[in-house]
C-alpha cells in the first residue's frame, strides 16, 4: 500500500521532477493566466508530500505564453526539451493550445488543460492531451436546455469573439434553434467598455434572455449597461461568469428583472466542499479571489501529481517515462477533484463531466458562494 511504500523508500538522493504550466502571465489576459499558474502552484505545495515520500522533489516551471501562438509553441519546445518535465498544465487560449499541443504530442508529454473547452483540442485524439473541463458543445447545450425549461421564447446571443466564447455561443444557438426558441440576434464583440451600440438591437428585440458567451469582466459591464438602459430580462452565461467580481462590476441591478444565471462545470461549495477550502486557501496565500479556471488548474495539477505518483509506483519507485505518465493520466479512475470527479475517455475528455446551472442570489460579492444550484447535469461528451 501507499503508506508502506512511503515509509520504506525515502530514497537517499531525491530526484527532481518538474511540472510545467503555460498560460499568459503578461499582457491583458494575464488576469486569468496568472491564476492558472497560482492554482497549480497551490496544488503542488499542498499535495507534493506523496511524491516526496517516494523520493521525488517536484518543481513547478511556469511559462508565459503571452496568449500568443508563436510564444506558446516556442515554450512548448523548450518544455519538451527538458527531460525532467513529466507533465504539464495549460493553456488558457485554445488558439495557443492547439499548435503547442502538437509539440507535446510529438514529445509524448502529457498535458492537462484547465480551461480549453474548444472541441478541436481533444478531437485529434492525442494521448497526451486531456482536459478536465466540459466541451463547448456540451456547455452550450446545457444552457439552451435550461433556458428552454424556464420557458424562454426569444434569446439574444452575444459572444466575445474568442474561441471559447464564440464556441459556447455557437452551440447554444444551435441547440436553442433546435428547441424552437427564437434567436433574435447573434453578435460578437471585442468591445470591453462601451456596449451602447450593441444594446440598441438587444433592447429593440425585446428578448426574454440575453446569453453572453465569454468572460465576466466583459459580461459584467454589458449587463450593467443593459440594466441601466432598462433591459428587464434574464442574463445567462457559461462558466466564464463564475466570479464574484461579476456582481461587483454589474452592480445590484443585475438581480433585477429576470436576474442572472450561469452554467458551470466547477462544482459549487455545496456539492464539492473542496472548493470552499480552495477559495479560502487561495485568498490567504494571494490576497485575492481566484479567477475562473484557477480551481480547474488546481485540479489539473493534482491529476498530474497523482498520475506521476501512480506511474512511479507502477515502476517500483523508479522515475517513469513521459509515456508512462501519460498513460497513468488516462488510467485514473474517478479522481476526486474540487471541481468534479474525473475519468478520461479515449480522447482525453472527462467522461460524464458535471454541469451545474447556478442562479446569482446576492449582489454582495462576499456572498458569491451562496449562489444556488438550480440544476445539476452529468453529461458525457458527444461520442466521435
Amino acid at each position: 500500500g501507499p503508506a508502506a511504500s512511503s515509509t520504506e523508500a525515502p530514497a537517499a538522493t531525491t530526484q527532481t521532477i518538474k511540472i510545467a504550466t503555460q498560460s499568459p502571465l503578461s499582457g491583458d489576459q494575464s488576469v486569468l493566466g496568472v491564476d492558472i499558474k497560482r492554482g497549480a502552484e497551490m496544488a503542488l505545495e499542498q499535495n507534493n508530500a506523496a511524491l516526496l515520500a517516494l523520493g521525488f522533489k517536484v518543481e513547478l516551471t511556469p511559462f508565459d505564453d503571452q496568449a500568443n501562438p508563436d510564444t506558446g509553441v516556442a515554450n512548448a519546445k523548450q518544455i519538451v526539451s527538458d527531460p525532467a518535465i513529466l507533465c504539464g498544465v495549460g493553456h488558457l487560449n485554445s488558439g495557443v493550445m492547439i499548435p503547442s499541443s502538437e509539440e507535446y504530442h510529438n514529445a509524448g508529454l502529457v498535458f492537462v488543460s484547465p480551461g480549453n473547452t474548444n472541441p478541436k483540442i481533444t478531437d485529434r485524439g492525442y494521448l497526451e492531451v486531456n482536459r478536465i473541463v466540459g466541451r463547448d458543445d456540451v456547455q452550450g447545450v446545457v444552457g439552451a436546455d435550461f433556458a428552454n425549461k424556464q420557458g424562454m421564447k426569444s434569446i439574444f446571443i452575444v459572444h466575445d469573439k474568442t474561441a471559447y466564447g464564440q464556441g459556447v455561443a455557437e452551440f447554444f444557438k444551435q441547440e436553442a434553434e433546435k428547441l424552437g426558441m427564437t434567436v433574435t440576434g447573434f453578435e460578437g464583440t471585442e468591445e470591453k467598455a462601451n456596449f451602447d451600440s450593441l444594446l440598441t438591437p438587444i433592447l429593440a428585440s425585446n428578448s426574454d434572455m440575453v446569453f453572453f458567451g465569454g468572460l465576466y469582466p466583459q459580461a459584467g459591464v454589458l449587463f450593467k449597461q443593459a440594466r441601466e438602459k432598462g433591459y428587464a430580462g434574464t442574463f445567462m452565461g457559461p462558466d466564464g461568469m463564475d466570479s464574484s467580481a461579476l456582481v461587483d462590476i454589474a452592480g445590484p441591478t443585475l438581480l433585477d428583472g429576470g436576474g442572472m444565471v450561469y452554467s458551470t462545470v466547477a462544482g459549487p461549495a455545496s456539492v464539492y466542499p473542496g472548493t470552499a477550502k480552495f477559495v479560502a486557501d487561495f485568498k490567504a496565500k494571494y490576497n485575492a479571489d481566484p479567477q475562473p479556471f484557477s480551481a480547474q488548474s488546481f485540479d489539473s495539477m493534482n491529476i498530474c501529481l497523482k498520475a506521476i505518483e501512480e506511474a512511479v509506483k507502477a515502476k517500483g519507485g523508479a522515475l517513469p517515462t513521459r509515456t508512462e505518465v501519460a498513460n497513468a493520466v488516462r488510467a485514473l479512475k474517478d479522481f476526486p477533484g474540487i471541481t468534479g470527479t474525473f475519468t478520461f475517455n479515449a480522447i482525453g475528455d472527462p467522461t460524464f463531466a458535471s454541469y451545474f446551472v447556478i442562479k446569482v442570489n446576492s449582489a454582495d460579492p462576499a456572498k458569491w458562494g451562496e449562489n444556488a444550484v438550480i440544476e445539476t447535469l452529468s453529461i458525457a461528451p458527444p461520442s466521435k
Partner: protein
Amino acid sequence: MFSKEKFQDFLAKLNTGYTPYVLILVHIMIGAIWVYSSPRSNVAFVVFISSLLTLYGLNTNKIFKLSAGLILALVVMPVLGVRNIFYLEIMFQISVFAALSLGLNIVIGFAGLLDLGYVAFYAVGAYLWGFFGSQQFYAIPYAPGIQPSDLPFLLPGDMFYLFIFIAIIVAALTGILLGLPVLRLRGDYLAIVTLGFGEVIRVLANNLDKPWNLTNGPQGITPVQRPTMPQFAVDGFNNFFGGIIGHTVSKADVYNVFFYLLALLVIVTIIQVVSRLNDSKIGRAWTAIREDETAAIAMGIPLVQMKLAAFATGASFAGAMGVLMAASRTFVSPESFSFMQSIGVLTMVILGGTGSIPGVILGAATVTVLNLQILQGFSLYLSQLRQSDAVIPIINFAWKNLSTQLDPAKYQRLLFGAILILMMIFRPAGLIPAARRQRELAADDEE
C-alpha cells in the same frame, strides 16, 4: 594606464591578419561544443549564436565568411537544433521575424514610410494557405466549431510550394490595393491608416465565419497541411548525422529542420533582392523620397509608383513568410496577427538599425532571443530559486519569502519596455546602424 586609444589600437590589432580567423573559429567551436555538451543551457546557446556576430563583424575574406556561415547555418545549427528542438524553434522564429523585419525595413528604412500594420500582409499569406491548404473550403457552410472533422482537403500538401509564390503575388497586390489610396498621405497619417488596415485584416480574419465560414473565426483553421516529407529524407538525415546527434530523429523534427532551412532561403532571397534594389535607381528613388518628396517629384520620380513598389515588395515577403508559418504550425488563427505583432516587428527594425540589413537581422534575433529565451529563462531561474532553500547571502533573505506578486515571469513587459527605452537612449541609431545614417547622426548630435 588604460586609455581609450590604446584599447582601440588593441581592438584594431585583433582585427588584422590571421587573428580574426582564429577568433571566429574559436568562438564557433566553443559555442558549438558547449551547446553540444549541455544542450539545455541558455548561456551556451547565446554564446553560440553570437558567433554569427563575430563572423559578421570581424575582418576576414569573403569566401571564408561565406563558407563558415554556410556550414554554421546548414550543418551545425540543424545538428545542434535537433538535439534540443527549442533552439531550432528559436532559430526558426528568428528567421521568420528577420524576414518580416527585412520586408518592413524596405518600407520604413528605405522609403521612409511608417507602416504600423505590417503583419496584415503576413496574415494574408497565412490565411491564403490556411484556406487552400486545409479542409476549410468544405467547412464553409458550417459555423465555427460545429463542422464535422472528416472533411476532405481541398488541395494536396505539396501545393504549398506553389502557394509561396502565389502568396508573394497576392500580398503584393494587397499592398498595392492598400497603397493606392493612402500613399499620398503624410508620414503619420500613413502610420495610423496602416495601423487601421492591420486591425481591419485581423478583425476580418476573426469575423469572416459569418455568413460564410471562410476563416473559421477565432477558432482558427487547423490542420493546415505541410508539404510531404519523403521517408528517405528522414532516413538520410538520420544516417548522415545520427552518429553526432545521438538519437534517431523523428519525422516531426526533420520537418522543423526543413522549415528552418526554408526560412533561411527566404531570408537570403530577401537580402539579395533588397540590396540589389537598393543599389539601383529604385533604391535611390526611395531614399530621395524619404529625404524630400517635393524635390524628388520635381526630379522626375513618380512618387506614387515608387512608394507602391516599396509597399508591394515589403508586403510580398511577409506574404511568403505567412505561408511558411501556416504550414509549419499547421494552424492559423487571428491571435498571431495582433497589433502587438506589428509593433514587435517594428521594434526589431528600429532596434537593429533602420535601413541596415545586418542590423535588422540582429534586431530580430535580439528581440526573439530576449523574448523567448532570456526573459523566460530569467523568470524560470527566479522561480526555481523561490522553490529552493536558497538565501540571498548578506541580507539573509530567503527567496522563498519573495512575495508571489513579485514573480518576475509576470513582468516581462516591464523588462522589455525598460530595455527598449535604454537602447534608444544609448544607441538610438540601432545595434548596427546603416552606414549612411551613422554619418548623419555624428553630424547632428550637437544640435
